């Protein structure tokens, strides 16, 4: 048997398979069409195997490999690793895709190290070049550099940033095969003693990656109390409030609201940056937004270069006037 096809790790500890997993199935179909072979979906499940498999087939899988677990919602990293190692050894896929969520980025390297494979991190694209090689495209140096990477051994393993590929249209008339697997305990010794998920610790308050419109505030904000004004503006625009790192460091905002290299990467339709200078580590988190509006007292602020509209002015005055204007427009102002 030789290496062929594409395998997708389906992240499935939440309400069901994650959106990022469907994005990967779509991409896997596209690549399998070029390099040949099947699209395999690898998933760990507790029940309703058929229902889940049908969905994965509709989104592009030819074959669904199911490992039965009891604790789907409290995933054990070591058991997921053992399942993937087992699946990869048997399927011999040319390419293995993982979502580059924190969970995926914690799991994939363990799998790669276990089988001695190369792994490329947090990719923005994966394509097949003219010589038939798989090329992985990723940012590095806190987003300053884009690198194209090839893997010279088998399999090629890649984590892919959520949201960069579209979710394909499901086709429920597609036919696929389901293979159920059992992981026996000597294949994964001491997984349960070594790593125990005690439970959910905190839900995320917000998911700014999913927002269509973002109002983001930076060190131009002078006090914690002032945040209310910008919160109001965001609310009036139907937008999500976000921030730069200094506001998190000051303890004024929670990390889940932070945009940037060490926060969240966002790609909204409209990004409104108020009092943010535009450091590379911030730009790395928002530069792919469709439309960028920024407000800054300093006409030479670097964020200007990444903006479609750059307002030279005070963010407080701007926010108050825009708030008034929007309220007037909506007919609720005075």
């Amino acid at each position, binding site marked *: 048997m030789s290496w062929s096809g594409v395998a997708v790790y389906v992240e499935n500890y939440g309400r069901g398979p994650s959106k990022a997993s469907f994005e990967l199935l779509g991409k896997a179909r596209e690549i399998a069409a070029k390099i040949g072979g099947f699209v395999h979906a690898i998933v760990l499940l507790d029940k309703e195997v058929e229902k889940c498999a049908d969905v994965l087939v509709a989104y592009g899988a030819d074959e669904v490999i199911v490992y039965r677990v009891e604790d789907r919602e409290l995933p054990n990293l070591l058991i997921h690793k053992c399942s993937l190692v087992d699946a990869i050894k048997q399927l011999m896929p040319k390419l293995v895709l993982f979502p580059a969520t924190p969970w995926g980025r914690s799991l994939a*390297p363990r799998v790669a190290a276990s089988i001695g494979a190369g*792994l490329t991190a947090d990719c923005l694209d994966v394509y097949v070049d003219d010589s038939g090689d798989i090329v992985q495209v990723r940012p590095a140096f806190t987003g300053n550099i884009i690198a194209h990477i090839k893997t010279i051994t088998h399999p090629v393993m890649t984590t892919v940033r959520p949201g960069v590929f579209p979710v394909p249209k499901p086709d429920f008339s597609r036919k696929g095969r389901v293979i159920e697997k059992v992981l026996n305990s000597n294949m994964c010794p001491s997984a349960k003693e070594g790593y125990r998920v005690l439970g959910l610790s905190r839900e995320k308050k917000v998911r700014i990656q999913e927002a269509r419109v973002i109002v983001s505030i930076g060190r131009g904000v002078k006090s914690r109390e002032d945040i209310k004004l910008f919160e109001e503006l965001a609310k009036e625009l139907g937008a999500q409030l976000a921030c730069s790192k200094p506001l998190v460091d000051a303890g004024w905002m929670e990390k889940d609201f932070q945009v940037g290299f060490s926060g969240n990467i966002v790609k909204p339709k409209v990004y409104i940056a108020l009092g943010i200078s535009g450091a590379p580590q911030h730009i790395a988190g928002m530069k792919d937004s469709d439309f960028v509006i920024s407000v800054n007292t300093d006409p030479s602020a670097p964020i200007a270069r990444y903006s479609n*509209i750059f307002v030279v002015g005070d963010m407080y005055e701007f926010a108050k006037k825009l708030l008034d204007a929007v309220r007037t427009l909506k007919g609720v102002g005075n």
Partner: protein
Amino acid sequence: MNIVVLIKPTPDITKVKFDIEKGTVNRASTNLEINPFDLYAIEVAKRIKKLFGGTIVSISMAPPQAEVALRDALARGVDRAILLSDRRFAGADTLATSYTLASAIRKLGSFDIILCGEKSVDGDTAHVGPEVAELLRVPHASFVTQVSRFDKDRIVVESDYGDAYYEIELRLPALVALSRPLMFLGETVEPSIPKVGDVLRARRAKIEVWSADDLKDVADLNRLGILGSPTRVVKSYYALESGREAKVVRGIEGVSTVLQALKELGVL
């Protein structure tokens, strides 16, 4: 407790200059310093040592000029700093890097906990922690935001999975990759600035340099450096060219321009 800290010397990312044409880093534009996330690893190591006693050993794989960063680590409270430096380590991807670091840890003997940063500011893969853990066959948790319990044989941490944070118990020995903001037993962890006396002491301290030959009893030398690296960067370019041409507006005109744009974009 035998505590190991993995410290990557990285360019100061707020100062570093890029060669825009070649898409590479201008190495001469800044010194190597401790990767910002790794400062948290040192801080946590000190707190564990305070509770249980023991020693903190740091391991870094880097070129010789990384010595400055290692002296900083010694000033911050690391007891013993080891620099893995050899031409044969060069060109390592994360698999070869992790193999080299894991081999060095094996050579050190037994350990209770390995601490590292969530990711580096240059390579930025977040692979090294989990790969070292796998190669040493110990459990790990990445993107750790809290250490909420620390006993002799097991610890409880909070880890970001993406959708939510989960509470995880790890049996020691284990590896933990630290994020920020970070809590340790209920207290916020922030890197502290070393005292002048410690900086002076660190200036005279010894840094142990290990070459590939020093690892030959514990490592297969073909798995080091570029030889042991399955991934290859085939092309790179500067990414922060924006291609946007901003319309610049001032004061009150700004509000009307933005209002108009928001209407056109369908926000209002």
